[in-house]
């Protein structure tokens, strides 16, 4: 039987270009284009009072990465409307992962989307939080036996808050924010550090499901 060959991305294989003086330059895309450092654990501040203050600030200023996954993303937009108005709680949408603290996985993740989600997650800076919506992220929900959908998000990235429902209504999400805030204020939302500590496990899980792993191990 034919082996299941891993997909080789031509853009990420080594290639040779000719330099200005005619010399050959070999480019190894993964090595040369991407930082290969692994994530580090960042200890909280020694002084408890500072850490508490910062955690309060983090909790009250949650910047959400506007990355809609699955069908739940449709539930996010009402959050910004006058009826629900998530701004009241210090929740704002940010268009870029660099500036965001919270990633909302708003539903099922196909394998393809998972890859993107992981990238975006890794591009966020410590401290960062993940909120998962709907049953799909908990156990696969209606896609529990799909060939192409993950069942349990927790295996691939540390989740701080699950909001159950199919789909959870905006009120539920608001409640999720409150729960997250509590977690953060209590200093329990150390997802980023968790990810760094158990990096190998997470990576192994991710790689198991993502066959065409054409990206560096950690997306800085």
């Amino acid at each position: 039987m034919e082996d299941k060959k891993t997909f080789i991305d031509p853009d990420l294989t080594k290639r040779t270009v000719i330099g200005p003086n005619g010399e050959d330059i070999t480019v190894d895309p993964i090595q040369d284009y991407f930082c290969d450092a692994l994530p580090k654990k960042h200890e909280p501040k020694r002084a408890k009072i500072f850490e508490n203050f910062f955690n309060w600030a983090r909790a009250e200023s949650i910047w959400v990465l506007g990355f809609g996954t699955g069908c739940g993303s449709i539930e996010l937009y009402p959050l910004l409307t006058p009826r629900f108005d998530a701004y009241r709680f210090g929740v704002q949408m940010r268009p870029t992962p660099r500036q965001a603290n919270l990633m909302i996985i708003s539903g099922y993740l196909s394998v393809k989307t998972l890859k993107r989600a992981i990238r975006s997650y890794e591009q966020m800076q410590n401290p960062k939080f993940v909120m998962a919506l709907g049953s799909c992220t908990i156990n696969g929900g209606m896609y529990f036996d799909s060939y192409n959908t993950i069942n349990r998000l927790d295996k691939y990235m540390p989740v701080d808050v699950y909001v159950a429902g199919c789909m959870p209504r905006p009120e539920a999400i608001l409640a999720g924010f409150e729960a997250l805030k509590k977690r953060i204020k209590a200093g329990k939302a150390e997802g980023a550090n968790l990810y760094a500590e158990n990096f190998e496990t997470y990576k192994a899980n991710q790689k198991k499901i993502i066959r065409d792993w054409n990206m560096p191990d950690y997306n800085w």
Partner: protein
Amino acid sequence: MVSPVHIVSIGLITAFLLGLGKKSQQQMLVFVLMIATAAMTMVSGSWLIGLMTGSLKPTDVFTAGFKPPFAINLRMTMDEAVLTTMVNVFGFLTVIYLFDVLKKAGKHLLSIIVVFLIGLNVVVMTRDLFNLFVFLEITSIATAGLVIIIQDSKSISAGFKFLMASSVISGILLIGIIFAYSYVGNLNIDFMTNLSMVKGGAVAVFLVMTAIILESKQFPANGWALDMYESAHPAIGSALSAVSAPAILFVVYKLMPMVPENWHPVIGLLGLITFAFSNFLATRQENIRRMLGYSSVAQGGLMLTVVAMSVYFGQSFWFIILGFLLTNFFAKAGLFWLNGIVNSDDQNKWGILRKRPVLFFLFGVFVVAMAGLPPFPTFFAKWEMIMQLAQGNGWGWIVLILLGSIFEIAFLFKWFGRVFHAVKDQPAEPVIPWFKEFPVMLFGAGILATSYYFIKYQQFDNLFVLIPLLIVAAFVVIDFLPAFIKNILLIAALTFYGYIIYPEIKGNIMQLVFMSVFLVGGILTLIPGFATKGTRAGFYPFAAMTIFGLIMLVNPGDNLTFFMGWEQMALGSYILILRGKKAERPAQQYMLFSAGGAYLMLAAFGMLPHFAGDTFFGNLSGLIPGAGVVFVLFALGFMLKTAAIGLHIWLPGAYSEAEDDATPLVSGVLINAGVLGLFWIVTSFGPQQLFGYDIFQLMGWIGAITAIGGNMLAIYEEDMKRLIAYSSVGAMGYIIFALSMDSKLGLLIALYYMVLHFIYKTMLFMSAAGVIYRTKTRNMYEMGGLIKSMPWSFIVVLIGIITLAGMPPLAGFAGKWMFYNAVVMKGWYLQGTMVFFSGIVAFLYLYKLIASVFLGQLKDNHRRVKEAPFVYLLPQFIFVIAIMVLSIFPQVLLEPLATIIPDRVPGEAILWDGRLAMTSFGYWNAFAVMTTVIVMFATIFLWLTYHSRKAQKVKQFNIVFAAERPFRPETTHVSYNMFAGYKKALGWLMTPLATQFWTGISDWSTAIADKVRSWYTGNGQTYAMHLLLYAFVLYLLISGGKIL
């Protein structure tokens, strides 16, 4: 002493001897001929030397023992001695040059050559009209014989056309002679001076004169001559051009005394028309020999003018005619001979000359000499001629001369540029026998020696003119040395020159400032040359020529020195630009525009004495009423160099295509020559009116539009050097604007900005050169992310653009601050805002420059690029230090600059109180601003550094992305067409009107030339008809329709 008649007798005897020779003795016969021509040369040469030293007196030789008018007499004075020597030397060299041809040809050809030479000698020497006719006919027949050395259909038919033409001409001449005889009763020229007074005698004079003028191949009745030039062997072409034409013109000179005074200008104008039109038609020529033919005809026309106006020119006549005559003699002959060596009329085939440096050098010398650039005699002759014509208000004449000259430059330098860039790998190394090379070299030496005497005759200032020229000459000689040594030597020479010149000029701050810009700029821009390997042949002489040409501009001397420096600088920089790989067309454009500007200035120099006595234009003082036209001409000339909008189209090409490390010299340093000139005229002329308009007002608008135009064009450039070049246009607009404000502050801005622009532009160009040196590309979109590998270059560019943009706290802001004050004081708000707008527009391209090259994504093929060589960085950092000093202490520069501005200039000056600059609008303290900014910067920087001390360094693709992954740097780098939105909004401003205009002019002139030259149908009968028509029109011109 040997009688001059022996020139003829030697010739005759030789002709008989040759007739006796046998076919088998051909080689010996050639040697006999050689000896005979040498003997003829010696006779005439001995007369020349004798007359020069004074050991011999001018003599008449009376044949048949009678005194004239009863017998033919030959005269030998200085004039004849010079001409016969020229003829005979030329004959001797022709025999050598044609050695291989003559060996194979029959003995008759040898006789024909002798007869040709005899004919010319007698034509020169004889004083008898009929004798003249006879020998003209003999020469004609001999010429016809010579033309068909190459026995192809072309040359034979050309010879036949020539015979037809000469039959017609000789008919006219003969009737004229016989009329003359029937009126005065003798045939001696010396006894005919009153011929035109006799009733009906004028007709005789007219006929004789017309015949000779026709014989001297004036436009447009000269198709037969052109066909002959085109088809004859190059050696024969050279004979026609170098000796035949001068001999005929000498006949004109001999006949001039009997021509009525009021005919002189008519004949003179005919010559000038020939000069202008033949050069014009030559621009359309691809065939080298025909082009040289046109050029010869044109030179003949110019000389005819000089000869016809010999009475008018008086004292200067000899200087002028010798300048033209000798240059034409040496250079034209040399070029024809080179044509014979290359053996092709295709410009591209001339590339083989590149393999022979000496020949190629001589080729360049001949071309430059023909074009009338310094230090060659034509230059001085043309200058003198125009000055003389201007004294008599001959503006139309001057226009014709200048037009002709610009066309001449157009085709000569198109040719030169083509040869310079012709494919070098010609099939095989050319085998050039010594006897072909020798005459060329001898004539090359001849023209150099002539130039030497012409320069010596001018009695130039030693320090400012002669020493520089000697240094340039020395670098020509040592051109074989390695580049490294020459670089050291040139830098040393410049330094030493600065050392000896300093005491001379230290009293004059203006000279000091410009001299230091030129000298320091020259030295610093040479330093990167150390990175070049090999000999870099041909670079250093012209770099030296450029720099010293600039230095001559600073000289407080006379107009001629200034103009000579200007032309020399143009020539030197032309070669420097031409050396670039794809520089053929840009260099040609540069040369044309430079020459155009120079000729406008030349006209202005001619007019100057009318308004201001004979002073140097920098020494004028106070208002000169009615000098508006002079001012405009000067201003246009200088603004061509500073590339004001509309006149700028040469600049981007020239600057970007020049060799990368030569660009700082030809741009950053050289452009200041224009500023110098503008500053000089603005301060010395003062406000001027043209048709009631204030010229400064106009200049202000030009400056403002230039500033916007230059900067706008820079935005859309993808080529690094073109971008910086357009930025220069913008900066020059700024300076023109500042100058035109004609206030103390305005002039100060202009000077300050001139220095500053010199510093940052040189710096930027050098930095660009360093980048290009490493990356081997000029397209900015092919670069990116170089900050990692070239951090020092990045710093330089950063400092450069902050200065350019005029952002505080760096030195550029001083200019902006003064600018606002000046604009508000002057009340030129709209123009001021336009300039201001251009300043902001500059941001766009500055950002593009630094971001596309140094920031963003590093390209794969530049991964191993290293920092620019140290020798590139060293001068850049010297400039950076200068900028830093100026930023903190602007008064170091501003205070001395303010003293340059004459008191005449109205307006407020800056007052200095320690570090405080004050005007009535406000004050400003550069030091304080700098300190504040540094403190703020340091504080915030430390704060950030503390906070981000643990930041993870990432690589180029660690940017935000999710679904769309960056594939390659190219797909992730926004650089090409960066300001697309801007283009969409304001791109209509960039309609290339100027380019269209100049292209249109070029196309039109080509088309017109093409139409006009179809006059030369190639049909011998038509040519004969032209001759008759010409005579008829000439008759109408001279007589005004009445019977003479």
